[in-house]
């Protein structure tokens, strides 16, 4: 792997993953401390996917995310401070406190929203890709969605249209083996979601979602293909979430075993990657420590920012429902 990739890219991939991991860990704590209201679906364990894919995207490219969306926004360039502020429901958040975790977004970064609706993203990403093609830009739109979401009609319709119109679109299925508490085998009769691609006339690719380089390389091809006008790809990344469906420890259900979790944790995308980077000399332990230290400092600051920020004023409730009409 590392042969092909520059140190710069390797370091960036690492940084993205660490930023996500640390953000999520702290967000989980803040939730448990009662600081963050609502429901928090954390991305811990799946960092390689957002990081590997987003490495190929600029701020002009668009993504749609899921209920588990922090990682996507961070990898797309989201600022911790405005993210924490949003999770806190503060006026300084990315959505002025109106969206929260499930709708966190930033249009300037091309992040078209986390989504509380499972399967909500793919049609929107398809629409953004349509827009890119229509406006003759070179932008690409990527839809992230889960294994569970692949059973929604919205995915089907979006995939069919994207393939039909040869849109600059990539469908990234983060298959973490569960939709909430239901294992994949209980929600679909196939092992690989990627098997659905052929039915739409697009390539389907399965990749190890715990290997950031594998994701990076597969995403590269899919995104190149999209950008070249050759149409969408369905890229399935096999992964696992280390936390529960919602929150850290969730509802305490026994739908998966400790052994299974431990097995997957052995394949932790970050730990494994760090070992390889140390091995090939891209990063020293000191450099790695510095990454964490910097990230931690940034998080601390961001949390402080969120804590210090004001809640939205009641009058803001009725703002943003409509755009004030502008003449064309």
């Amino acid at each position, binding site marked *: 792997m590392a042969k092909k990739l520059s140190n710069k890219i390797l370091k960036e991939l690492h940084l993205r993953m660490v930023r996500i991991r640390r953000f999520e860990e702290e967000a989980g704590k803040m939730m448990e401390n009662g600081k963050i209201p609502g429901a928090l679906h954390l991305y811990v364990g799946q960092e390689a996917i957002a990081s590997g894919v987003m490495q190929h995207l600029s701020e002009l490219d668009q993504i749609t995310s899921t209920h588990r969306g922090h990682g996507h926004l961070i990898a797309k360039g989201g600022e911790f401070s405005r993210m924490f502020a949003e999770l806190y429901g503060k006026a300084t958040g990315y959505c002025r406190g109106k*969206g929260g975790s499930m709708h966190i977004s930033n249009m300037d970064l091309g992040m078209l929203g986390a989504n509380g609706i499972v399967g909500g993203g793919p049609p929107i990403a398809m629409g953004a*890709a349509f827009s890119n093609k*229509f406006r003759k830009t070179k932008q690409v739109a990527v839809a992230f969605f889960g294994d569970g979401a692949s059973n929604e009609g919205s995915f089907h319709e979006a995939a069919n249209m994207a393939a039909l119109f040869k849109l600059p679109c990539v469908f990234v299925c983060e298959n973490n083996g569960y939709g909430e508490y239901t294992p994949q085998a209980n929600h679909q009769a196939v092992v690989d979601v990627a098997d659905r691609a052929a039915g739409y006339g697009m390539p389907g690719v399965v990749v190890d979602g715990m290997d950031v380089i594998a994701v990076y390389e597969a995403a590269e091809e899919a995104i190149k293909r999209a950008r070249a006008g050759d149409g969408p790809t369905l890229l399935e990344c096999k992964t696992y979430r280390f936390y529960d469906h919602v929150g850290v420890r969730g509802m305490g259900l026994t739908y998966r075993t400790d052994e299974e979790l431990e097995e997957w944790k052995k394949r932790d995308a970050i730990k494994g990657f760090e070992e390889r980077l140390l091995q090939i000399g891209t990063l020293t332990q000191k450099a790695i420590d510095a990454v964490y230290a910097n990230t931690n400092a940034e998080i601390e600051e961001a949390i402080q920012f969120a804590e210090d920020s004001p809640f939205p004023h009641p009058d803001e409730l009725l703002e943003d429902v409509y755009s004030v009409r502008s003449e064309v």
Partner: protein
Amino acid sequence: MSEAKEQKPRKLPYVAAITEGVRQVLIEQENAFVAGEDVGQAGSVFGYYQGLFDEFGKDRIIDTPISEKGIIGLGVGASATGCRPILDLMFMDFIGECMDEIANQMAKMRFMFGGAATLPVTVLTMAGAGINLAAQHSQSLEAWLAHLPGVKVVMPSNAYDAKGLIIAAARDDNPVFVVLNKMSLALQAEVPEEMYEVPIGKAEIVREGKDMTILAIGRMVHEALAAVEPLKELGVDAEVIDVRSIQPFDTDTAIESLRKTHRGLIVHEAVRFGGFGGEIAAQLQELAFDYLDAPIARVGAPFSPVPFSPALEKVYLPNAEAIVAEVRKTLGI
């Protein structure tokens, strides 16, 4: 509507007014396109995009698969990223196929993002019964949309308004639903050739009267007008208001009229129970309580799906007779 309307005495049917409105928008707005099922070469099953495919080509008049969720999703994603889509939902009855994309994405994206997203998207869709298309091709479901913060909803009753509201909708930076009526496609009206807007959120008094305000929605405007003569014979001089826009609803025009007439009646083709007439009646009795000489009356379809048989559909559909009967009941005359 007065001025522009009188300049040129050119008459157009409702269907052609839609075409002209969409066409002018496509010329004016380079990032506008039409997307929907059989909107292209077929020109829509209702014929209102006839000629546009030849004029604008397949990149701007886009035939989609039969995928209502996809169509709305396309409009959400495209409008949020610099396009101004005109989506076609064919029969309004199909709205359930994409209600999530409408209600949870299109209507809420701007709000959920704290105002950061703008969705200038227009949706045309065809409502109404009357040609024996039965329960799944005849509904008037505007009440669902009116209850949905984040979208606007207009219902043109005539060719002039159809064109003007489509243009206003396409220029609006919000999702706007233009709910058309299939029985009105051949209805002629004077329609100026130039672009003009009919303001969204403004009702129109189409006939002045002093004894009773009839607020009619969509095609029911014509039934209300048809009731004017028989009502006159009963001694009731009816004022007929074309509601035109149900979200926003023009409360002021309605209240002002009621202050004069002291009596009100609402007519819509949708099922009466739970229909938008309830909202209007609730507002009117609240805001004009002291002026009212009689309860606000409502005419709407009975509580049943739309029947196929001509013998039943005739009974089902609200009409001038039903309006007269309701007035008599309400006023005890």
